[in-house]
């Protein structure tokens, strides 16, 4: 058994304790404590520059956590980054898509880099679900921002991640897209997935059963309680 895994942390999907981050002298996160369990959606609200995207980058393993601890599915992410990446999907401001590849090729590329064996039928089914069936064999460079976002989100149907990290997921989506995304997220949460999302849009998030948090001055405060969350 992996020594970093313990039974208490196994029940949680993600567990952050005392996480701090700074850019040079500027302290962005000043001690973040957060626990997310299966079927939970945590939404991060906050002004521009409050550190929401930084926190998501830390959670995605893109940035290294230097102060504090982060456990994902019981794994100490600092020492098990690769295993952690198998369990999460991050869709940020960038969609991480290649313009010269088609939708199908982009999804297959994603699958191969995450050790997924995906049949053509499965890929086409995922594209159908996100409303891109007709654009399956078209190069992504001609896609609108909304289509790119849908294609990026189609990856979650393929990898079925334990933790989904979303940075402003509603941006670029039309009202139909917002409705579709919320339905997909609700299904995902019902199946035991966990979501941490940064958003400026409380109205659109309202369709999800979620725990809202405010990120301000580097501290994460649960909005219901009005006090910083403790581990």
């Amino acid at each position: 058994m992996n020594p970093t895994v313990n039974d208490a942390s196994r029940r949680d999907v993600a567990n952050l304790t005392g996480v701090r981050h700074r850019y040079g002298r500027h302290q962005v996160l000043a001690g973040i404590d957060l626990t997310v369990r299966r079927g939970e959606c945590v939404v991060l609200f906050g002004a521009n520059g409050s550190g929401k995207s930084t926190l998501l980058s830390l959670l995605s393993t893109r940035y290294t956590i230097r102060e504090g601890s982060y456990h994902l599915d019981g794994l100490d992410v600092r020492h098990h980054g690769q295993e952690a990446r198998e369990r999460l999907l991050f869709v940020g401001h960038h969609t991480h898509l290649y313009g010269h590849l088609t939708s199908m090729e982009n999804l297959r590329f994603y699958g191969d880099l995450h050790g997924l064996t995906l049949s053509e039928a499965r890929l086409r089914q995922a594209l159908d679900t996100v409303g891109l069936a007709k654009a399956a064999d078209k190069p992504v460079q001609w896609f609108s921002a909304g289509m790119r976002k849908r294609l990026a989100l189609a990856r979650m149907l393929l990898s079925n991640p334990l933790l989904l990290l979303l940075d402003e997921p509603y941006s670029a989506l039309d009202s139909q897209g917002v409705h579709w995304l919320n339905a997909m997220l609700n299904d995902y949460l019902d199946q035991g997935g966990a979501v941490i999302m940064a958003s400026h849009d409380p109205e659109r998030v309202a369709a999800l059963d979620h725990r809202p948090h405010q990120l301000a001055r580097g501290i994460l405060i649960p909005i219901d309680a009005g006090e910083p969350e403790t581990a």
Partner: protein
Amino acid sequence: MLKAIYRIAWKDVAGDLRRRATLSSMLFFAISVLVVFQAAFEPDRKEALRLLPGLLWATSLFTTLVGLGRVFQAEEEDGAFEGLLLASVPRGVIFFGKWLGNLLLTLLVEFLILPLTMVLFNVDAWQQIPMILAILTLGTLGLTGLGTLLAAMTRGARSRETLLALLLLPLTAPLLISGVQAVAATLVEDGAISPWLKLLVIFDLVYLAITPWAFGWLVEE
């Protein structure tokens, strides 16, 4: 892991062939260099044979630099490089995928320019072509290996092409000298190729052992 390496390399090569971006630039650059050299020196057969090793490697080096300048260009679109780093594969796999794609494009150009050089300079060394190709391949393994690492290092720099050349040229000088000497030894009777080939292999092993590890360290933030 091999599948991921292949897929990253495929993405780069297929993408380049579709856009005709890097390959056409490399070929155009290589042909221009050869034509300029031919026009400048107008060497006779004997001189051409003496010039050939340096000429081949200089052209290879310049075309490699053109390719390296663009090796991470596709990754700059829409945060694609970040997407690569979020893949659940070791960093070394990403490095080897990028390296393999660049290596294949560079070798393709080298294999095309070798016969062209022979014709342009009227060099009668057709029987030595397999050995020269083997030497070019050996040298290019290390050259593109170190080059891919340096391209990753200079990815965000404003004048990355200049920086890349400044870093790559001194660091690969021993490998280039070995490559030039190996080709020169191939073109003369009783030339001692073996020591130069051994040196090329040693440089390749050193470069390709260090660079994936250094890449992993480099991309951490």
